[in-house]
């Protein structure tokens, strides 16, 4: 039970049940959709980017607790960040989820996103945690078509 709580931390359960920034953005400058065909997780991401800064970000979609909470916490974290900062965040986040355990702590600068460190123990769930981020990358790069986690 204790190791399951490492994955399903209170913060993740909370964000999965009450996702923040959930809804569509009327005046978005960038949009993209993401889909995980394995488990059917779906997300649509809306961004308002001005002068290289993410001013607003919202999402809609349906998925498992990990993918929903990841999208919710991502949107919270991204507001006010530059695109360069967002890219570094994704890289650090991805490294935390996929790096071998003995590489030491890789949570620096992730803030609340470090709550997903437990996903590292569940390789099958890495795709759930990264779906929103892959979708973000597509939105920023102007590829509005479906992001895949494959």
């Amino acid at each position: 039970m204790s190791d399951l709580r490492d994955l399903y931390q209170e913060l993740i359960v909370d964000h999965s049940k009450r996702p923040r920034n959930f809804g569509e953005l009327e005046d978005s400058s960038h949009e993209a959709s993401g889909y995980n065909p394995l488990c059917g997780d779906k997300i649509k991401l809306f961004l308002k980017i001005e002068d290289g800064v993410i001013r607003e970000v919202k999402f809609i979609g349906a998925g498992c607790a990990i993918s929903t909470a990841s999208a919710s916490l991502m949107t919270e974290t991204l507001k006010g960040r530059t695109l360069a900062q967002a890219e570094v965040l994704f890289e650090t986040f991805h490294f935390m989820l996929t790096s071998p355990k003995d590489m030491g702590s890789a949570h620096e600068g992730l803030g609340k996103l470090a709550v997903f460190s437990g996903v590292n123990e569940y390789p099958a769930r890495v795709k759930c945690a990264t779906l929103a981020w892959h979708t973000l990358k597509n939105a920023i790069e102007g590829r509005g078509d479906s992001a895949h986690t494959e």
Partner: protein
Amino acid sequence: MSVTTPSVASPKESGTAPLDVAALRRDFPVLDQKVHGKPLVYLDNAATSQTPLAVIDAMRKFYLEDCANVHRGVHELSQRATDDYEGARAAVQKFIGAAESEEVIYTRGTTDALNLVAHSYGRTHVQAGDEVIISTLEHHSNIVPWQILCDERGATLRVIPINDAGELLMDDYARLLSDKTRIVAVNHVSNALGTVNPVRQIIAMAHERGIPVLLDGAQSIPHMKVDMRELDCDFYAFSGHKMFGPTGIGILYGKRELLEKMPPYQSGGDMIKSVTFEKTTYNDLPYKFEAGTPNIADAIGLGAAVEYLNQVGMDRIAAYEKHLLDYATEAISAVDGIRLIGTAREKASVLSFIVEGVHPHDIGTILDREGVAVRAGHHCAQPVMDRFGVPATTRASLAFYNTEEEVDALVAAVGKVQELFG
């Protein structure tokens, strides 16, 4: 060297005595292990069943002692391989009550068998304006081949709807049948919900109009006695790995009169009598449909699985599983916040459910950590999920080696899910 030892627990007396499940479990060494520190509770049998020693031994014997190609029997090993390969076919024929072994065609599995019929029978019988009938309950493998065929031919796919319990609406089926219908292809048992379809009625109604019926038997053959002559179906497809045999082997049963008229599905060696650059003469049944060197070891494994099931007794398996399904249905239904998807009156060995407020993918992960293996997802049956308005379900699927204690472990693990998300 004797490796084809009969299973230690196979009850030779058969008859109506109840199963000695504890003894039978010893035939499946894989079941005796811990997963994440908890005893394995394997409830994903509808995806792939486990393999008894008798099957493993038969395949091991082939590779250790008899490995050679079949039907090229000038040397001893080839003769032995051919005898065992054809012996397995005869065992399957007897097991499913087919009139002749020539009606039993080896395939890669159910999907391959369904594709064979869609390609070979479909392309010679379905033309523009014709119709093919399937049902809402189908696995993608009994949807997509017909969809492709219909697109290609300008034909129309008709779908028998279901009610809220997950049962076919037979009045709608009656209305769908018409002079345009060329084939009816439905599953015997639904993989997503466990519904046992009224196939005798389905077949009788189609036959009144001279329409052939294909049954996807992947989920029925591990759980009940099937008899081709009694069912009177025209085609029946199933997989080895869902009936305690190996992966990569399956069977298409077809009535001789239909198979004789069908063109080959794939072509190459073994399916021909003679080849010149001007003309090729096809081989007789069943070899016309078995191009290339077949999956010999797995066919022999399938034969051993059938012999194993004969020893355990399909009637006794069905009786035990009915008891276990009733027990599981009651236990799962008693949990607050759980909704069973698929509550047909006639069901076999599947419990599909959703837990309020928790995505099936999360349930699958949590159950796994408790040692309980289930399937979480759409079960390759997205139209069924759409019908019930859910993206996915958690599916526990039973086999005769499962126990009430394992059902209790499932229920307890679901309790942990609710605790984590409470």
